[in-house]
């Protein structure tokens, strides 16, 4: 019964929190750029408007893929709230990521095709890091189940600081922030129009936006677990992390996938390995 309630909380929290975070993100970004920025609720208005638009697609596969993307993202967050197996959550999240790519490849559009290929490169970059973070959790708590985290009396950050930094790479990629926003971007001014999302429109774009919110909350939730002992510190950790993300987004240029692969695999994985060696040595 408890699990059911947690699942429902997760299913609701995803879009609500995700939308709010997106709204605040835009305000803070505007503040950095000396602008006023939209109201905090703007992302919700945007998605509501998208749902009111006419349904138009290049082919039916896109509808299928958009729906599966949002469903998989929602299930992975629900599993996260139900404190399920960390690796399982990660794999379910991958279902959504794969379907987003496949949907983009279904359209005969050069923009979404190139976007899909780049999205795959992003998956290639962040997946090993996420797996290593999962293994780090296992090494510290002795279990892949999230429930085991609560039995620790020290914040996990103390034992896996480098894994947290590496997770920052995955977070930046997942949030589609510069310098890693080359498959698609929150801003419609890149060389690929809207990259992997180019051919999605109307309600289906709305679904993808919601799926993106779910994923944002999932990765931020993973970050939050690094300071599970105290709610205030947890909030502070998240705020600092997100502020850094926005700062990086605003100060970095968009780079290429080669740069990303080398950077994430060498630096990100390097940090993971060093941190895991500490954990294995204990």
């Amino acid at each position, binding site marked *: 019964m408890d699990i059911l309630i947690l699942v429902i909380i997760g299913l609701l929290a995803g879009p609500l929190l995700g939308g709010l975070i997106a709204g605040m993100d835009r305000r803070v970004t505007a503040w950095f750029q000396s602008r006023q920025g939209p109201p905090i609720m703007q992302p919700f208005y945007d998605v509501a408007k998208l749902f009111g638009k006419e349904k138009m697609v290049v082919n039916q596969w896109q509808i299928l893929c958009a729906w599966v993307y949002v469903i998989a993202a929602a299930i992975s967050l629900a599993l996260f709230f139900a404190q399920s197996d960390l690796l399982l959550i990660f794999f379910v999240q991958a*279902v959504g990521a794969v379907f987003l790519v496949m949907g*983009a490849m279904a359209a005969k559009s050069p923009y979404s095709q190139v976007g899909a290929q780049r999205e795959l490169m992003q998956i290639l970059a962040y997946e090993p890091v996420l797996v290593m973070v999962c293994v780090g959790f296992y090494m510290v708590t002795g279990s892949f189940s999230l429930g085991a985290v609560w039995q620790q009396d020290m914040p996990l950050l103390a034992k896996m600081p480098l894994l947290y930094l590496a997770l920052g790479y995955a977070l930046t990629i997942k949030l589609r922030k510069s310098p890693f926003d080359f498959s698609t971007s929150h801003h419609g001014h890149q060389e690929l129009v809207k990259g992997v999302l180019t051919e999605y429109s109307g309600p289906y774009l709305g679904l993808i936006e919601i799926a993106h919110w779910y994923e944002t909350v999932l990765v931020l939730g993973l970050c939050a677990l690094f300071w599970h002992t105290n709610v205030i510190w947890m909030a502070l950790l998240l705020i600092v992390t997100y502020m850094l993300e926005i700062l990086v987004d605003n100060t970095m240029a968009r780079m290429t996938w080669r740069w990303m692969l080398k950077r994430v695999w060498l630096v990100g994985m390097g940090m993971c390995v060093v941190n895991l060696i500490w954990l294995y040595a204990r």
Partner: protein
Amino acid sequence: MSNLLLLLILMPAVAALVCYFVRSSAVRKLTVVAAGVILMAASLGLLGQGAFEPIAVGSVLGISSDFLVTVLDFALLGVILFYGIKHKSVLIQVFTLAQAALLVWFEVVMVEHAAVPALVGDQLSLIMVLVISIIGSLICIFAIPYMDKHEEHLHLKKSRQPQFFFYLLLFLGAMNGLVLSNNILWMYFFFEVTTFCSFVLIGHDATEIATKNSVRALWMNSLGGLAFVIGMMLAYMKTGTLDISAILAAGPQGALMVTGIGFICLAGFTKAAQIPFQSWLLGAMVAPTPVSALLHSSTMVKAGVFVLLRFAPAYVGTFLSTGVAICGAFTFVACAALCIGQSNGKKILAYSTISNLGLIICCAGINTPLALTAAVMLIIFHAISKSLLFLCVGTIEQAIGSRDIEDMRGLYAKFPRTATITIIGILTMILPPFGVLMGKWMAMEAGADTNIIIVVMLAMGSALTVVYWARWGGSLMSSRKEGAPAEQQAVLTRLPLTVLCVGAVVLSCAAPWIYNSMLAPMFKVAPFTVSFGSLNSATGSFAVVPLFIALGLGVLFAAKSAFGFRKARIMPPYLSGANSTEDGTYVGPMNGDVPFSAGNMYLGELFAEGKLTPIFNVLAIGLIVLMLGGAL
């Protein structure tokens, strides 16, 4: 019991002889289908009777069956030597003569010929028999219409199908014999039969390249055979018995015996085409598709991993075990990396097979109940999904005349059924809640306990795997014109495709029960408990059935909103210009249509096959030396 065993091992051989000598196409087809059905029924019957203790086979026509196997052994070595001389391959000649010499020494001088029960059926054997008999038979049935088309395409004057089906069926019998052997000499004999069958089948088309590749397969596997003989002798020096059950029950017994087992593992490596032996399996794709499907999914390569799993209790907790795990993990990541650079569909399948076998071998090396469960799960589900994908590629190749995934782009437009089945097959390879991914999940959870090298390699390999599958699956999807003609498929093509596709999905859902009834009895302390359709271990849980229900309902709903009656308006894609009438083209310079074209990123500068293969080979040889040397 013994009747069933007879059916499983000898009946395919008899059916093979019928196929070879009765040169009527109708009789052949009937024989193949009947043999397939009988094999499936017999394997299920064997499962129904459950595991059995080692049993003796006794004598045939007054000749002891052990003696018969010995005679056949030398006859087979003679035949292989003949082909070695015929194809002027020094390597084959050397390896075969060395095997024969050592075998004579072993049989005449070393072995005291005590009666050893020849066959045994534990859980592992029973599962392997099921995989071989059911999937192998489906592939044989698929081969019937395929070979007709294939020979039509080649304009052969005289059909070579009798020979083809002879070896195909013989192969299945030999595989069943291999997995049921309890006498190590019997196991060696069947091991050699599979080597020889694969050699003939790879070279079936008798083109220059086919012959070349089949010779390569033969010398590499002869090296494996030689390693097997050496390993057998070393192990015998210490244990003094040919009885595999007894060897396993005793566990690791010092350096000499473990080194012997190490050589047997090396034999398994060659058969499972682990790096640096991957080239024979890559070369094997010149054979007709059913052969590739058989080699890659249910037979040959599975014989390799079976040998490693069979002897797993004999090297548990030794350095050899860690070495095996590292070698396997290395092949897993290296072949996944090589796969990224490929656009040839069959080559992608080949590298992915080797990569997955690496994962299975890594699990065998990790050698905990959790890891061994992962290995068996991977064997079962990989066999189903991979055979399905091979048959799909074969069907696509006969339809479009190419096996390049760039040519398969937009396949759904013309061949919706084949494309959809292929997409499902691909998804069952990489996504939860399907069985292969579940096996990978178990492997990762088991690997997290071992050492960091294995963890890093598993993490990288897993990410690389997703990339090469996802882009293939995505590129098959496309628009389909309304009222386009339906796809035509022969019944005997459609049947195996549908059965395997449904099987891959349904059996994945039944995984908790498969685990409970077939895998859990393998261990004293079972790694998982099953509740509410979830597999729960001490360190994690995989909610198989709940996930199936949630994702299944989700996908059904998604499919209904996509393909249901309330249709969204179909629009041409955005092309930064005026769209022309043709889908995906726009009006370009001089009012001419600019056609759509796309290509995957193969990351040539990072994952070039030619550049990486030598490096990987050297690294892998180093790891194998490390593995064997460490066992001493």
